[in-house]
C-alpha cells in the first residue's frame, strides 16, 4: 500500500532535455553530459521513495529504510558485478538488456503511453541524478 502511495505522491523529476548517449556492447561508457556523479547524493536518490523509487522493487544496503521491495535483485554488491558503464545502461535503458523487464527506463521520454500530465516529457531522473546513482551503485562492493 505504502508503495503505491509513494509512487502517487512522487515528486518532480527534472524537466531537462535528455542527454544523448552511445551504447557500446552492454554499456554506456561515457558519463551523461560529461557530468561527475556524487555517491552520497546517489544514495539519497536510491533511498527516496518519491524520487528514485528503487526500493519499491529492490532491496539495498540502506538499513534505515525498512520497507524494501523483493521483486528485483538486491543491489548489495552490484558495483562488483558491473562496471560504471554497465550500470549506466541498466538505469537508462534496462529493456535493451532484458526485454519486457518491469524495471522502468530512468532516462527516457519517448515511446511511453498515457503518461500523467505532471510527468509528460520528463525522464524519471535527469543526467546529473543518473550519474549520482551510478556513483553510488559503483561504490556497493562486496
Amino acid at each position, binding site marked *: *500500500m*505504502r*508503495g*503505491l*502511495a*509513494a*509512487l*502517487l505522491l*512522487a515528486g518532480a*523529476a527534472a524537466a531537462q532535455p535528455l542527454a544523448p548517449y552511445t551504447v557500446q556492447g552492454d554499456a554506456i561508457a561515457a558519463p551523461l553530459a560529461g557530468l561527475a556523479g556524487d555517491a552520497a547524493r546517489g544514495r539519497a536518490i536510491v533511498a527516496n*521513495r518519491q524520487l528514485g*523509487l528503487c*526500493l*519499491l*522493487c529492490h532491496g539495498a544496503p540502506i538499513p534505515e529504510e*525498512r*520497507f*524494501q*521491495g*523483493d*521483486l*528485483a*535483485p538486491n543491489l548489495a554488491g552490484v558495483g562488483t558485478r558491473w562496471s560504471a558503464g554497465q550500470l549506466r545502461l541498466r538505469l537508462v535503458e534496462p529493456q535493451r*538488456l*532484458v*526485454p*519486457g*523487464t*518491469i524495471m*522502468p*527506463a530512468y532516462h527516457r521520454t519517448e515511446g*511511453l*503511453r*498515457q*503518461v*500523467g*500530465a*505532471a*510527468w509528460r516529457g*520528463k525522464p*524519471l531522473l535527469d543526467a546529473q541524478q543518473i550519474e549520482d546513482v551510478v556513483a553510488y551503485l559503483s561504490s556497493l562492493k562486496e
Partner: protein
Amino acid sequence: MRAWLALALVCASAGAQPARSGLDFMGPATQAMQRDDSQNPAMLWLHEGQALWNKPEGREQRSCMSCHGDASQSMRGVATRYPAFDTASQGPLNLAQRIGQCRVQHQQATPWSPESEPLLSLETYVAQQSRGLPIAPAADPRLAPFTARGQAAYVRRIGQLDMSCAQCHDGAWDRKLAGNPITQGQATGYPIYRLEWQGMGSLQRRLRNCMTGVRAQAPPFGAAELVELELYLAQRARGLPLETPAVRP
C-alpha cells in the same frame, strides 16, 4: 535472476495459476475485520444502502423495493454477472451504472455522481446479496469485443513508469512492493472499505489508483476504458466467491 522475471512474464498469463482472492494475502487483523460483520466498517454503508433500497424517491415516489421487492431474493446473484450488456447503449454497464440507470429512468430521480456515498451504499447493498456466490460473468458474445479491449489494456504498459497491470498482478504477485504484498489483483469484494481511504470506494477508484501509481493519466470515473477493464477482471476472477463488502488496508 533475469530468468525468473522473464519466465514469470511468459507463463503467468491469467488462469495459468489458481486464482486467489486478495483476502488470502491480508494480515490476520484485516481478514478478521472483513469476515466479522460486527467489526467490518463497511456495515455502516450496507445499512445505509438498505435504507435507500426502501426509500421512495423521484417524481413517482417509487423505491427500489416497489419494483424489485425483497433484495435478498431479487438481487441474489445479480452482482456476480456484472458488468453486463445494456441494449439501450449497446455496451457494457457496471453495477453502479445499472443502479444509476434505474434511479434516473425508473425512479425519475436526480442522478447520483460516481463515487457518491448513496451510490456506493446502494451498490454495496445490492452486491452483498451475492456474498459467497461464485463470480460468473455472462457468456454474452456481445460483450466479447469489450472484454478483449479490457484484456489489451491489462497488458499494455502505461505511465512514466511504463508498467502494465499484468507485470504486477500476473508477474509479481506474492512478492513485495516496498514491503507490501502484491496480490493477483482479483476484483472480488467491491465496493471495498479501505483503511487508507477511511471509507468505501468502487473498483474504478482502485483501478484509477493503480494507474496514478505508475504515473499514468487515469480515465475519469465511468469511462469506457475502466468498464472494459472491469469486464476482463470479472473473467479473470470467474469462480472466486464474491466477498462484498471486502476490507483492504
